[in-house]
């Protein structure tokens, strides 16, 4: 077989295989979210006889007193707040960690940060701590939890990127009379922009998709996040698969949009972070 033909045949089979393995589930969810309740209950791949797109999506958004809309609001707010704090604290941490690498405290700090990548958080003691300082079941509490748990990965990415910024930049800033604080905010932080955008995209998806932490630390009907709402709809809509699937489609849209626009950045961040971790 000629190389050209071989390339084509292998590629063709790979496309065929991924279509079955990946596209079939996507198609299955999307097409069933367009059906009426009876047709969706058959759980087939067939096209719907009547497209109930508008009704289904409207119902899933307004059911239980606009629960899903509130959940989208909560999740968006949680994601935005967590990301702002996360970027701020981990950029500063990564800056100092890299510039003071080799110092007396640095191996302890590195160890504690790396440990956070591996060790599962202690659930009930965390609830106890949150409760003691009055932050259990509050947006502030869950935001700080998300920051704490996503800090190690972000700090390690920042630290790795800092090592590509030469110390000469700092030196010339110091000679010009710049202090540490001004150096960081007006010179270093803008230079960190490539890795900052990677972290924003990657961690926004992670926090938006987070199920476990809101489940434990942000319970309560008013506090619903999108993942919790989807989980609750699983029991509410046991017979209305069309609505459950409509919910799945809706909450998959934000990561899909980020993926379409920032595909390369996401992959770069995941591999960089992974190789460092």
């Amino acid at each position, binding site marked *: 077989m000629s*190389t050209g033909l071989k*390339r084509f045949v*292998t*590629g*063709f089979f*790979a*496309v065929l295989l*991924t279509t079955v*393995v*990946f*596209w079939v*589930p996507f198609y*299955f969810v999307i097409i069933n979210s367009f059906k009426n309740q009876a047709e969706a209950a*058959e*759980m*087939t791949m067939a096209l719907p006889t009547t497209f109930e797109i508008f009704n289904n999506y409207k119902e899933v958004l307004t059911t239980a007193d606009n629960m899903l809309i509130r959940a989208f609001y909560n999740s968006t707010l949680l994601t935005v707040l967590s990301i702002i*704090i996360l970027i701020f604290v*981990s950029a*500063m941490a990564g800056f*100092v960690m890299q510039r*003071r690498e080799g110092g*007396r*405290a640095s191996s302890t*700090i590195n160890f*504690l940060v790396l440990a*956070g990548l591996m060790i*599962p*958080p*202690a*659930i*009930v*003691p965390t609830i*106890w*701590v949150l409760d003691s300082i009055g932050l259990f079941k509050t947006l502030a509490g869950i935001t*700080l939890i998300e920051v*704490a*748990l996503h*800090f190690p990965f972000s700090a390690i990415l920042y630290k790795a990127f800092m090592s590509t910024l030469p110390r000469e930049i700092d030196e010339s800033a110091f000679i010009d009379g710049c202090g*540490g604080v001004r150096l*960081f905010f007006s010179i270093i932080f803008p230079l960190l922009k490539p890795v900052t955008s990677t972290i924003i995209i990657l961690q926004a998806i992670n926090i938006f*998709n987070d*199920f*476990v932490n809101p*489940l*434990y630390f942000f319970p309560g009907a008013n506090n619903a996040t999108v*993942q919790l709402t*989807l989980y609750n709809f699983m029991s509410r809509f046991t017979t209305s*698969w069309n609505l*459950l699937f409509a919910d*799945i489609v809706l*909450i*998959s849209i934000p*990561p*899909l949009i980020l993926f379409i626009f920032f*595909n390369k950045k996401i*992959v770069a961040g*995941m591999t960089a972070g*992974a*190789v460092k*971790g």
Partner: protein
Amino acid sequence: MSTMTKRRYSYVFLLPAAIIYFVFFLLPTVLSFFFSMTRWTLTDWDFIGFDNYITFFSETALSIGFRNTLIFAVVTCGLKVLLGLLLGTLLTSSIIFKSYLRSVIFFPTLLSTIAVGITFSTMMHPSQGLINISLAALGLNGPDWLGNVKIALLSVALVDVWKGVGIATVIFIAGITAIPQEYYEALKIDGGNAYDGFRHITIPLSRPAMNTVIILAFIGGLRTFDLIWAMTKGGPGFTTDLIASIIYKQYQAGFYGLATAGNVILFIGVSLLAFPLYRFLTRSEVDQ
């Protein structure tokens, strides 16, 4: 380090992160060792020594979690390494539709685990599910994927691989791309074929990538909760209960001390398995 450095790169920069990380992660972790030895109602506690741990190891409903978690971690990790390596090799070779294929394989890693879990539990329904209907069309009799105690855990593991193989693949792609092309050219001159290249160049030289995938996938497997919870809730019986889902069940039932003991066991398990694994893998990397 000079006082100049200390003043310029002050640890004050670390302070906001340190406070948040300490209060919401490190402190609870340290406290968990104490609270795991108590009967605890969140407001009040009785110190009961190692009773919670004894309960955890002696009750089948709880101790089954160790076996399941280990099986789940080993199976998902093994499959991710194997498939990730094969897909990584395929997607760095000169086939057509490469970037399309990369995107399709990678995209599921960005989806919500709960959404993926619900979708696959529907498709794995024994009589109505898409998978068994398709198998029936081919004349095959599909099993009860999530209802059969012998295969339920493996079914969930397969879904975890479906969702997570994309990360393994992109890490392998990064590793394989870093291998100098000259090695393959030299092999070609010496008369080696594509398989030789895979066996004697790709596999040994993508070891750093492989180590990363092993560690990430293994730790991820040990900590898995949401996929199990969305698909089986630990059932049928306790056959798919992982340590993390047992912790949640004990928490729901109000056994806070017992749930915390589960947390400490998971902590120790991850440390005992993952840290030595990390050191072993990174050491053999240097040796080669």
